[in-house]
């Protein structure tokens, strides 16, 4: 295995964020605990952030880093409200199983 494709280029970062993204998707599909599903969504958003920064570096264009800011804001707001809902469900049903979320009306 020659050493030249070990040298890190943009492709290595894209592959790494692809792997992280698929682990996040796996977490959302497999787990039944609502909070762990929220965590997996955070992981997927982080994988996208990694892509933005990698493109910002390798194409010398700063807009990638600016987009990371906005992805961070949306992810934080989503986590805050998502957890508030999960807490409300826990107080009502004593467990945070995803099946309990079907009862949310309105």
């Amino acid at each position, binding site marked *: 295995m020659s050493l030249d494709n070990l040298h890190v280029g943009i492709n290595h970062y894209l592959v790494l964020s692809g792997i992280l993204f698929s682990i996040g998707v796996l977490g959302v599909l497999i787990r039944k605990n609502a909070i762990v599903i929220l965590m997996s969504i955070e992981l997927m958003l982080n994988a996208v952030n990694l892509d933005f920064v990698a493109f910002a570096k390798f194409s010398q264009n700063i807009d990638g880093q600016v987009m990371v*800011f906005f992805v*961070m*804001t949306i992810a*934080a*707001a989503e*986590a*805050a409200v998502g*957890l*508030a809902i999960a*807490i409300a469900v826990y*107080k009502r049903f004593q467990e945070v199983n995803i099946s309990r979320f079907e009862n949310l009306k309105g």
Partner: protein
Amino acid sequence: MIQQLGPILVLAGVVIGFVFLMIFLTNLAGPKRLSSPRKNMPYECGIPGTNTAGTKFSVKFYLTAILFILFDIEVIFLYPWALIYVDFLKQGPFIFVEMVVFMAILTFGLFYVWKGHALDWD
């Protein structure tokens, strides 16, 4: 990049080594007395513990954490703004108006939380 990250990683290694060394030293040098169930009970000034640690806690803890996240985002946006404020001021008052609008909206959010008694600890 390496001029800044290298020493930090070395420092982290030194700290972790220090902690492991000390804990290992305590295991080595510390006396191995028998552990009786009574001694292992959680320490509550001698009063036998009533129930496990998972008792009900008030909602205020995670509401503070939620509000902390949302206001932390505001602080993160203020940092880069503080760097270029003086440079952009030379091209006119626009940068000033931008920030006043941003902070006015979020201060209104803080005001809503304050008046909505969400932060009052009972």
